[in-house]
C-alpha cells in the first residue's frame, strides 16, 4: 500500500480551516509549560566576588559595613556558617555552579581550563532548565569561563563588559563568540596580558597596555569626584550605579520564570570606595592580632590594617548602591515573586601576614562567606547556625522550585530549606592551585568541618601540618588544639587523609 503524499486543494482548505483553532489553543499549551507558569518564582542569584563573612556585622563584625543588606536580612534565611569549597574564584564558583567539590570538577587553577568535560552537563542551569529560563552574567572573567562552558543551558548570556564603561578584553569582542573560552585563554591569559609580566605579543601587548592605562587615567579624571582613590575595575572600568541599573533593567524584562545568575565584581580588589565612604570607620578599632602563617606573604600589620579599612569602605559603598536594586525589587513586587540568593564565591583575608585571597591559606575569612536567601511569602528573619557548604546551593534551589534533585551533586539540602542540621556531616574546602587537573593533588591545603570543629591540613614542601579549632569557642581560630591531641582531631585527621586518598586514587599511576 502506498500513501499519496500530495496535498490536494481540498485537504489544504481543510487544514486552513483548522488554523484559527490552533492559534486559539496556543495560550492553553503554554499553560502546560512550567517556564510560563506565573506561580513559579524567579531565582535571582547574586554573587558578590571576594565577600567575606568576617567583615559583615550580621555575622559578628564590629564595623557596620553593610547596613542596607542587614535590613534586607530581616526577611531572609541567614546562614551564619556558610563555607565555600575553594579560596578563590575558579574553584569557588565552579563548586557553587556544579554542586561538586573541586577534586571532582577539577577547576582548581587560575586559568580558563574550566570544569572537566565529564562535568560540563552538571550545572545549575542544566538542573533548572525544565522549570526556568536561564540567564548568566559574570563581571569576573574567571567566573565567565564557566558560563562559556555551560552556554548551551543558558537562554541569555550577558557579556562581562555589558555594564562597563569600556570593553577592555579583546576576547569579549562579538567576533569571538563562537570560541569565547579559548579566545579568553589565548588573549587575556597569554597574548595581551593586562599587567606586569611577559605577554605573547611582542609589540601590540605593550601598545594595548599603554592604551588601557591611558583610558583608565582619563576615566580617573572624569570620576575623581565620586571615586577619589581608584575606580571599580573588573575586565574594564565600571561604575557601581550603572552596574546596579543594568542588572535591574535586565530583571524588569523577565517575562517568564527566570534563573538569573549575576556574578558581580565588587567587593573584589581593587577596592574603590566612593568619597562618602572614605570618611567611614575612622574608629581606631584594630582586629585581634594573629601570628603570621608560615605560608603567608608576611604582610606588615599596617599594610593589613590599611587594606582592611579600604575593603570595609568599599563594602559600604557597594551596600549603598545594591540597596537601590533591593528597594526596587521590593517596590515593584518582584521580591514577592522571586527567590533571592546573595552570597560569594570566596572570602577575603586581612590577617596572619596575608591580604586579599591570593593565598594558600584556608583560614576562615577566606572561605567563610555570607549567605542570605529570601523566599516569596517569607518576611521573617531566620538565623541558621549549622555549618553549610556552597555545594549545597544547587540541590537546595532545585528542591525549592520542585525540580528533581540531581543525582550527581555532592551537596546536601540546606537546613531549614528542605534539609536538617547534621553535626556529623563533613564539609570541605580545598586549595590546589598549583596542582594538575589531570593528576593527583600533591601540594594542597584542605580543611574539614565536623561536629562544629575545623581541621586544616597544609601539604607543601615549605610547610606541612595540621591545625584544629573549636568553632563555637574559638571562631577566630586563635587557639590551635591540634598539639593537645584531642580524640576528635585524630578521627578527623584520619577521615581527611582518607578523603585525600579517595579523590587522588583515580589519578594514581599504576605500575
Amino acid at each position, binding site marked *: 500500500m502506498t500513501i499519496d503524499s500530495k496535498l490536494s486543494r481540498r485537504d489544504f482548505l481543510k487544514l486552513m480551516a483548522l488554523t484559527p483553532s490552533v492559534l486559539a489553543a496556543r495560550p492553553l499549551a503554554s499553560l502546560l509549560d512550567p517556564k510560563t507558569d506565573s506561580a513559579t518564582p524567579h531565582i535571582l542569584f547574586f554573587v558578590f566576588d571576594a565577600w567575606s563573612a568576617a567583615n559583615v556585622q550580621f555575622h559578628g563584625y564590629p564595623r557596620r559595613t553593610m547596613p542596607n543588606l542587614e535590613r534586607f536580612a530581616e526577611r531572609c534565611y541567614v546562614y551564619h556558617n556558610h563555607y565555600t569549597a575553594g579560596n578563590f574564584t575558579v574553584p569557588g564558583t565552579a563548586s557553587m555552579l556544579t554542586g561538586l567539590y573541586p577534586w571532582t570538577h577539577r577547576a582548581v587553577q587560575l586559568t580558563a581550563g574550566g570544569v572537566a568535560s565529564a562535568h560540563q552537563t552538571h550545572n545549575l542551569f542544566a538542573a533548572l532548565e525544565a522549570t526556568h529560563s536561564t540567564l548568566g552574567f559574570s563581571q569576573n572573567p574567571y567566573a565567565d569561563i564557566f558560563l562559556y562552558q555551560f552556554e548551551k543551558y543558558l537562554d541569555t548570556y550577558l557579556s562581562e563588559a555589558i555594564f562597563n564603561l569600556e570593553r577592555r578584553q579583546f576576547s569579549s569582542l562579538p567576533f569571538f563568540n563562537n570560541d569565547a573560552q579559548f579566545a579568553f585563554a589565548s588573549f587575556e591569559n*597569554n597574548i595581551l596580558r593586562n599587567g606586569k609580566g611577559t605577554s605573547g605579543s611582542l*609589540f601590540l*601587548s605593550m601598545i594595548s597596555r599603554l592604551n588601557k*592605562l591611558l583610558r583608565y587615567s582619563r576615566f580617573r579624571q572624569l570620576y575623581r569626584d565620586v571615586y577619589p582613590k581608584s575606580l571599580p575595575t573588573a575586565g574594564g572600568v565600571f561604575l557601581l550605579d550603572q552596574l546596579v541599573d543594568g542588572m535591574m533593567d535586565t530583571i524588569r524584562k523577565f517575562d517568564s520564570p527566570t534563573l538569573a545568575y549575576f556574578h558581580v565584581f565588587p567587593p573584589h580588589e581593587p577596592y574603590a570606595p566612593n568619597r562618602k565612604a572614605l570618611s567611614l570607620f575612622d574608629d581606631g578599632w584594630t582586629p585581634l592580632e594573629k601570628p603570621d602563617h608560615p605560608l603567608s606573604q608576611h604582610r606588615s600589620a599596617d599594610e593589613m590594617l590599611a587594606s582592611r579599612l579600604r575593603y570595609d569602605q568599599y563594602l559600604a559603598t557597594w551596600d549603598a548602591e545594591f540597596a537601590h536594586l533591593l528597594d526596587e525589587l521590593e517596590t515593584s513586587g518582584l521580591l514577592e515573586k522571586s527567590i533571592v540568593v546573595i552570597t560569594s564565591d570566596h572570602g577575603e583575608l586581612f590577617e596572619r601576614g596575608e591580604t586579599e585571597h591570593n593565598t594558600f591559606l584556608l583560614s576562615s575569612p577566606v572561605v567563610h562567606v555570607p549567605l542570605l536567601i529570601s523566599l516569596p511569602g517569607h518576611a521573617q528573619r531566620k538565623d541558621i547556625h549549622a555549618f553549610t557548604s556552597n555545594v549545597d546551593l544547587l540541590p537546595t534551589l532545585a528542591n525549592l522550585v520542585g525540580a528533581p534533585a540531581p543525582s550527581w551533586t555532592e551537596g546536601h539540602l540546606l537546613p531549614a530549606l528542605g534539609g536538617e542540621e547534621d553535626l556529623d556531616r563533613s564539609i570541605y574546602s580545598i586549595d590546589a592551585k598549583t596542582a594538575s587537573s589531570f593528576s593527583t593533588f600533591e601540594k594542597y591545603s584542605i580543611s574539614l568541618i565536623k561536629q562544629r570543629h575545623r581541621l586544616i591540613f597544609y601539604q607543601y614542601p615549605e610547610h606541612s601540618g595540621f591545625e584544629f579549632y573549636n568553632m563555637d569557642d574559638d571562631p577566630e581560630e586563635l587557639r590551635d588544639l591540634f598539639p593537645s591531641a584531642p580524640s576528635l582531631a585524630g578521627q578527623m585527621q584520619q577521615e581527611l587523609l582518607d578523603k585525600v586518598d579517595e579523590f587522588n586514587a583515580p589519578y594514581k599511576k599504576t605500575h
Partner: protein
Amino acid sequence: MFMLKKLSDFLKRGLPAKSEMFLVLSTAAFLIFTWSVRTLFFNFPAFLLSYTIGEILVIAAYMLAFALFETLLATLLLIIMSALLPGGIFKEGFSYKASFFLIAFGAVSIHMQNVMTNQPTTDFLLLELGRALTLWLVPVLLTRYVNVVRKIVLDILDRLIIFSYIYLPLGIVSLLVVAFRLLW
C-alpha cells in the same frame, strides 16, 4: 587619473625595494614568532595542569595566528614610515634600518613588560623611548659607516629569511584553524 598617477609615482619614489621589504618581513616574523613561541613554551607547564594537548594546540593556533597579524602589521607600518619619511632616514638601507628598529623597540617592549607598573610616569616612558632610539641609532650608524659590520649585518638578515619560510606558513595554518573555530 592624474591623482592615481601622482600616487603611483609617490609610491615608486617612497617604497623600498621588494627584496628589502621581504628581508624586513623575515626579521619581523623571526622576532615576533620567536617571542610568541617562547611565551608558549614558558607557559606550557602551567597549561599542562588544566588543558589537554588538543586544547593547548588551540591556544598555540591563536598565538601564532596573532603573531602573523602582528608581523604583517609591523612590516606594513615600517613600509609606510619609509614612504612618508625623507629617504635618508628609512628608505636608503631600509632592510637593516627597519630591522634594527624592530629589534630596538622589541627589546624595550620586553623590558617594559617586566618593569612597567600600572602607573608609569611620563619620565619613565620618555626614558624607554630614548633607550629604544639609542638602541636603534647606534647599530644603524655602525652598519652605515663600517663596511665589515654592514657585511655581517646584511649576511645575517639574509639568513633570517629561512625563518619566514617556517613561521609564515605556520601562521597561515594557525589562522585557518582559528577561522574555522570562529566560523563553525
